[in-house]
């Protein structure tokens, strides 16, 4: 970013703005029209409709009442809290598990290529399919997971039907689903670290643990930052997996912002639902931007 910034700044200094030297400006028109119609117009329309009570047939301007309503509703607020739990726990989980797998899969192990494909495989499967499958696997009475736990004498938890557990169970599945992509990015990051560093460290007598913390982690920082950012944004606006597995239940205990918004839409509260979307957009921007800035701070 900064590199480009500097270059343009230099160009601007050395030479006054000369439109003749660019492609004709009307080249921008088609893209501009599409962008305006498909993005800008709906965005501003939704900002307006979020301030109304809207039935699709007519709308009544009510100011910020929808937003007030959103933050006063206990279950809407619960959705907000769960969104953060889900976003942060899945992105942390993906980085930690993904890092372990990446280190394993870049080391010298038998059938490395096959194992890499196996780890990546869940990324290829439809999220809804995963949700429905795990719904069956996690069934407290007849599910395979609890049946397997019962063999070793463990009384499995009520994964999706316990109000305290449900959101974490979904987060676990999300980690399983997304860890393949995280691993892939982290493997690319690890491969970019020159072997010389490890050689030098070994000569100085550094243990494997030290090599990991002092060489691998700092030098794969860009890859880690990428994984964290992507999975955080994914996690904050997640919908499909939660909907396929619990529909926000039992009760409201695993609702996230996106599922709450969808339910308001289903109920016909279109204004309230639009206000929820505006909130979701701002939450993601407010959370993601500083984190991205922080993670990329030393990346120059």
């Amino acid at each position, binding site marked *: 970013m900064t590199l480009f910034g500097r270059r343009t700044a230099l160009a601007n200094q050395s030479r006054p703005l000369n439109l003749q030297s660019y492609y004709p400006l009307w080249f921008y028109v088609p893209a501009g029209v599409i962008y305006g119609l498909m993005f800008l117009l709906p965005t501003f329309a939704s900002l307006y409709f979020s301030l109304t*009570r809207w*039935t*699709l*047939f007519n709308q009544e301007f009510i100011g910020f009442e929808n937003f007030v*309503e959103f933050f006063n*509703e*206990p*279950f809407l607020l619960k959705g907000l809290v769960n969104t953060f739990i889900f976003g942060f726990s899945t992105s942390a989980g993906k980085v930690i598990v993904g890092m372990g797998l990446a280190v394993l899969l870049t080391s010298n192990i038998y059938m490395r290529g096959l194992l890499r494909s196996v780890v990546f495989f869940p990324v290829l499967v439809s999220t809804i399919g995963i949700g429905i499958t795990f719904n069956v696997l996690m*069934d*407290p*009475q007849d599910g395979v997971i609890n049946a397997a736990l019962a063999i070793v004498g463990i009384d499995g938890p*009520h994964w*999706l*039907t*316990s*109000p305290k557990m449900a959101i974490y169970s979904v987060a676990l599945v999300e980690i399983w689903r997304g860890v393949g992509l995280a691993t892939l990015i982290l493997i690319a990051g690890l491969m970019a670290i020159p072997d010389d560093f490890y050689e030098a460290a070994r000569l100085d007598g550094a243990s494997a643990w030290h090599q990991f913390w002092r060489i691998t982690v700092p030098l794969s920082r860009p890859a880690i930052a990428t994984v964290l950012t992507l999975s955080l944004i994914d996690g904050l606006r997640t919908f499909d997996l939660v909907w396929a597995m619990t*529909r*926000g*239940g*039992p*009760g*409201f*205990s695993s609702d996230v912002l996106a599922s709450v918004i969808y*339910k308001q*839409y*289903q*109920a*016909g*509260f279109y204004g*309230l639902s639009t206000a929820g979307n505006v909130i979701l957009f701002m939450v993601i921007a407010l959370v993601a931007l500083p984190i991205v800035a922080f993670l990329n701070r030393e990346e120059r």
Partner: protein
Amino acid sequence: MKTTKSLRTLSAALAVAASSAAVGSSHDSVEVTLLTDNSPNSVAVFNALEAAFEQTHDNIDINVETRAGGTEGDNIVRTRLATGTMPDLFFYNSGSLLQALNPSRTLIDLSDEPFMERVSPSFQSVVSDGKGGVYGVPGEAGMGGGILYNRKVYEELGLEIPRTWEEFMANNEAISETDVAPVLGSFGATWTSQIFFLADFYNVLQQDPDFAEEFTAGNIEMSENDAILKSFGRIQDVYEAGYFNEDFASATYEDALRMLAMGEGAHYPMLTFAVTALLESYPDAVEDLGFFSVPGDSADANGLTVWMPGSIYLSQSSEEPEAAKVFLDFVASQEGCEVIVDTIGASGPFLIETCGLPDDVPQPVSDMLVYLQDSSRNAPALEFLSPLKGPSLEQILIEIGSGIRDAESGAELYQRDVRRQARQLGLDGWN
């Protein structure tokens, strides 16, 4: 089409095959499309109605389309009406859910049609907008909400049908000593959580006869209203006493029906339309089942909460309203009712005045009919007396029925849910 009368009773699959053959063979006919929910009952009924109708009407082709049910279905219906893409006819709830469709702006008024004279006034009142417009004809039979029970379990333990809530809980206590689950919960199908609450409304009306009007006007604070708090508390009582089946949190509607039919569960709070599904899956077990209303405080005031049938409506976006009306005329006739009974059995009374029921109805249905013979022993569910029904009710009741919150805090939450709905509908008194 050369279908014989006996063919009518065949399964939905045959009806579909027959109807596609009809589409292939006709040329100058008018096409009318009907959108229904995808429950096996509805699909079977409408395909059978289509086949029977086309036998006598060469120039009209009925085309049955399906949509998802539940809140997903509400969403589809509202969106398609609002965007003018609704097919000619559609099957949907009557009562409060109809009010959310803005009927006077989206549906064609049928009040002047001659066939409406056959539709009973009590049904017309739940498909009207209160300003003279009447919008639908019944597309199924009427239903009762209460408790389906296994009569074999009752016989073995020597239990009596409970006439008060206390007696009901005492029966549960006796059943809980055995392997049988006293009450079946099926929160895996979220809508089923509502029945204890909704079917208790007869008892609310006994205590508070003006409840519906006051509720609609916004004069009732539910967390402070004794009668409705008791309704919220039913499911809490059952949960706290541990009477639910072990897998109540994940079991589905089908699971619960199986457990009831197999005698693994004794009571299942449900609407009587479940009898149709039971007849289909467990035909031999249905005679072992029975039905009683949700009991209240007093044995003297024991009665049934009644559900009006879903209705077929005619959309204003229809291009063939006259042909569609011919089909409505057919559905609202004795012939129409007979097709329904032939297809899915007699699950309740028809709201079409020329239609009777066969003499041998399934046991749970005949148990229900007893309540309907005495007008003081039945009352409509709240959703047919008020346009208000909050969309989060099923989640709230699951929370109460799983011990996440108590009846009072659930009532408070539902109050807010209803207030949002009232404001959306533009009702006075809720601001």
